[in-house]
């Protein structure tokens, strides 16, 4: 099965990190990504720019409306994702728990819908 692991964390707190902390986090992410590539679980994954760069689009009555910022204001913001292949939810949860941000933020694990 495929799962999308959505990485949420508090952007403001993350922005306060100093250079050495950031370097450490980057190294942890590199090692984690490498490990799930090697285990064959990795499908895709990216980090996202800050929510300050977001634009939200809606079409109402045929008219496009854009708003500055993310869809919802929340305490933690979406900051990245992994798309993985896992045998079941337990394996997916185990991988999610190893994402470095799981220690300070939250990882939402969502199964990918299959059409048959």
């Amino acid at each position, binding site marked *: 099965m495929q799962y999308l692991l959505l990485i949420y964390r508090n952007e403001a707190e993350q922005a306060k990190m100093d250079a050495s902390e950031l370097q450490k986090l980057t190294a942890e992410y590199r090692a984690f990504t490498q490990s799930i590539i090697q285990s064959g679980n990795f499908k895709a994954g990216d980090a996202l720019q800050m929510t300050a760069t977001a634009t939200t689009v809606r079409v109402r009555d045929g008219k496009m409306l854009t708003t500055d910022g993310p869809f919802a204001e929340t305490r933690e913001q979406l900051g990245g994702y992994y798309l993985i292949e896992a045998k*079941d939810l*337990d394996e*997916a949860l185990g991988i999610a728990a190893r994402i470095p941000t799981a220690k300070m933020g939250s990882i939402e694990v969502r*199964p990918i819908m299959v059409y*048959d």
Partner: protein
Amino acid sequence: MTPVEIEKIFRDEAGRALSTLIRLVGDFDLAEDALQDAVAVALERWPTTGLPANPRAWLVNVGRNKAIDRVRRSIAFRGKREALTHELLLNASAPCDDDNGMLEDDMLRLIFTCCHPSFAAEVQVALTLRTVCGLTTAEVARGFLVSEDAMAQRLLRAKQKIRLAGIPYEVPDRDALAPRLNGVLAVVYLVFTEGYAATSGEDLMRPDLVREAIRLARLLDALISGRGEIKGLLALMLLHDSRRAGRTTAGGDIVLLEEQDRTLWDRAQISEGLLLVEEALRMPGRPQSYAVQAAIAALHARAPSYEDTDWRQIVGLYEVLLRISPSPVIELNHAAAVAMVDGPARALDLVNALEARGGLKGYELLPAVRADLLRRLGRRDAAREAYLKATAATQLEPLRRYYARRIAEMDRN
């Protein structure tokens, strides 16, 4: 065979038959539907043919055939999902193994799936009661104070999550077993506590839930050997439940431990509980919370009267509990035991300190314990006020009547 006898067999076997059917057909909903079909056939036939030699195997075999019928019908109607259904037919038509180990594992698989940590605690309890214990949706709904429809929806969503999110139908491996088992035991204990002292309503107890919780713990103890936490929990529940007949009057009023007629206690259940406590405490490793709680219950069970209870040891055991799993509720129980050793004034100090720290905000028994201590100290006005607070805090009718009785007693003297 009478319908009542058949009903009892369904109750005993439904969970196990379902657990094997789920493995064979690979789908929760299909297995449930197929089992219902099999039960319908049994209700028709068993009254005349008599009970089959192995009712569970009979239900599994008939259920498996019914599942195959259902899948064939849906292929004919929809003509899709062929690859999947082929696989299902292959699995399902494999001979039903009589290997007992495999069948026992099925039951564990079902329990661990229902108690999967990706479900909210309430959902774990509801799923377990419905599928493992075989309670009807209406019976489960009653425990949660929701309508049958709402509960049916909740169960449906949970079963969808099992399928769509890929919750595995398996017993966790060695490394994951201990934390997952703790989750399962927490569910069993939740079922028990709701049955032992309901949160609301006319009746103090729901013996059906207590019976299911004890049955589940026995099953777990038989299926997973050598786990002190299971034995401890089973002992705890047996010892608490042994007092059932003494806990209420014929009219449904509460009788507190200090006033209970101890000859009404279930001696056989107490002996079994005492043996299990011993076993649990002898297990290697640090003492487990359930076992220590059971040891406290054991001291009550062995005591000839309330006054002649080993309160000093009970206080000591609460202190052990506070070290292994500290909680404000245990602190409150500790304070109540201290009242019996060092007097109500010392206990009231502890309760006041606990309240000041704010750890028990909203806990409905806090004003009740306070009220009791104040009454014993002869501080009538403060006690009355606390009993009124306790009355407002509970939704359980027998408790409200008990507080009213205490107030009336004080006003008389």
